[in-house]
């Protein structure tokens, strides 16, 4: 049996910070990640030889990276780093299954941290499956990791900080988008900004990003949304409409923009598949991305020894993820008998800091929260489940026939049964059919959390 002391899934800000704390305390630590290199999406580095642009380096999430990565690298010789490993299953008894190429393994951990990050929350509209339509996070990782953006006019649309970041970064690299389409109206943002008075750094950075965009002459269409994408074999044009207070598109004053690339997203959703497969109870918090694993102040879930940290436990950004990763690691060290004198005080300080930052962040997330009218862009003929090609009309028809839980709708329509395992349609199905009863279980998620070749499962080490 492959026994391990501490296992961490995800080498982003939370996972890296946790690994450093554990290794510093002499805990044998295994770090499992899908990518070849540590950093996760937010700290994705360009390939060797490609310089990182100065604008990226100046952002707060990146200024945070250097000290956290440095602390990790000091102890990294003590960390077993399993790169390009897909963690695809997890039991309540902390057995983690991971596949690498054509082989797989099960790690039996004494303490397990899930720091699996997040992915874009998307709202479907006709044409959103056309090549050239990307999630905002996806476009950002292409720009940041490779400096690549497909040719032609770019439109950034949706709502949230990521939109601002993507637009500003494109400006900094000399490819300003032709428009930034933001559903949130100015007056709604003012309240979010006021809540940030205790964190002036965040306000300043937001202002800096916006300044970059305005100086480049990018039109910012506030209170607007992309309602349709047109094209034959790839995206050619998008239709933009103003939205009302609830983000419902108003079918007037529409305009057509030439676009070969569209980035769309409404914040992020936590990657919760492994926690759900393990059986961790979840609760819903729309401001933090949706379904979140339950945990205590020390980041432990109701399953003893199973911890969660970072955006995967509630989307709040890299700075908060680092604090959560450290908190989880201190509790894991204690569980493994490797805690040091003073660790309890250290935890208390971290927790105070975290609480304060979470409070400031909440007002911002409240300002950018998804308003229900935006689901009107998902017309009956719109594909809801990209994997299986299921339309909104089909989902509604089965809902009327009595398939009222997410799981029964999945059985009836196949929405959520495809390769992405419902990650991009789960929220849409709920929105189309009304939120399920409070006591009805969320969409069932089964292993493998990601598609894994059968050959890898058979070739078990």
């Amino acid at each position, binding site marked *: 049996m492959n026994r391990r002391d501490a296992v961490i899934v995800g080498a982003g800000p939370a996972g890296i910070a946790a690994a450093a704390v554990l290794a510093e305390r002499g805990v044998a630590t295994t770090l499992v990640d899908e990518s070849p290199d540590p950093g996760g999406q937010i700290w994705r580095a360009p390939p060797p030889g*490609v310089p990182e642009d100065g604008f990226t380096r100046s952002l707060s999430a990146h200024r945070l990276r250097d000290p956290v990565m440095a602390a990790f690298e000091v102890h990294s010789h003590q960390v077993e780093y399993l790169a390009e490993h897909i963690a695809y299953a997890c039991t309540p008894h902390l057995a983690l299954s991971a596949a690498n190429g054509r082989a797989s393994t099960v790690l039996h951990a004494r303490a397990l941290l899930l720091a699996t990050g997040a992915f874009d929350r998307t709202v479907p509209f006709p044409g959103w499956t056309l*090549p050239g339509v990307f999630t905002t996070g996806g476009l950002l*990782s*292409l720009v940041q990791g*490779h400096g690549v953006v497909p040719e032609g006019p770019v439109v950034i649309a949706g709502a949230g900080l990521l939109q601002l970041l993507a637009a500003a970064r494109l400006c900094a690299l000399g490819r300003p988008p032709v428009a930034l389409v933001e559903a949130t109206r100015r007056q709604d943002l003012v309240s979010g900004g006021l809540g940030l008075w205790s964190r002036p750094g965040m306000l300043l950075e937001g202002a800096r990003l916006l300044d970059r965009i305005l100086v480049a002459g990018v039109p910012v269409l506030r209170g607007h949304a992309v309602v349709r994408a047109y094209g034959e*074999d790839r995206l050619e044009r998008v239709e933009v409409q103003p939205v009302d207070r609830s983000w419902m598109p108003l079918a007037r004053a529409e305009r057509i923009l030439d676009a070969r690339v569209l980035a769309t997203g409404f914040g992020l959703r936590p990657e919760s598949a492994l926690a759900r497969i393990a059986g961790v109870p979840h609760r819903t918090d729309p401001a933090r991305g949706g379904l979140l694993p339950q945990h205590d102040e020390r980041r432990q879930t109701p399953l003893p020894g199973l911890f969660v940290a970072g955006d995967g436990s509630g989307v709040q950004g890299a700075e908060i993820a680092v604090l959560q990763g450290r908190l989880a690691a201190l509790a894991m060290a204690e569980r493994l008998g490797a805690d040091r004198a003073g660790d309890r005080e250290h935890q208390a300080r971290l927790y105070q800091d975290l609480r304060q930052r979470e409070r400031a962040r909440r007002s911002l997330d409240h300002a950018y929260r998804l308003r229900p009218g935006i689901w009107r862009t998902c017309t009956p003929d719109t594909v809801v489940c990209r*994997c299986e*090609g299921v339309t909104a009309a089909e989902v509604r028809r089965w809902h009327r026939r009595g398939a009222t839980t997410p799981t029964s709708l999945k059985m009836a329509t196949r929405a959520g049964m*495809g390769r992405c395992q419902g990650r991009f349609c789960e929220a849409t199905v709920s929105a189309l059919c009304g939120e399920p009863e409070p006591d009805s279980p969320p969409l069932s998620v089964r292993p493998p959390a990601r598609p894994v070749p059968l050959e890898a499962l058979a070739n078990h080490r």
Partner: protein
Amino acid sequence: MISRLLRPASVPRVTIRWKGEPLEAREGETLLAALLAAGILATRRHEATGHPRGAFCGMGVCMDCLVWVEGEGRVRACTTRVREGLVCRPAEHVSDSAAPSPADSADPDRPAGDPP
């Protein structure tokens, strides 16, 4: 307009093949970055609807960027690194075994859609 916003001279180049055509890529980048930089966005047709598809999430979640890589099978372009001589093509109509599918096979007598 250019698709590569950062142009260092020092990065070694590799040559890959997409649908038989040679493409220049940069060592260390993903297959997705190489294809997009070459203007290839539609990398697959949806198995049921036949509609064109390409990368969407760019971070390994959505599976829309699946391509067929010789010797590896069906992989995500966004999580696969390029290497010299890599041969790839759209993933549709390709069975999960390493054998070429009927649609791609040179045998005209075998009807498309039957198992090999």
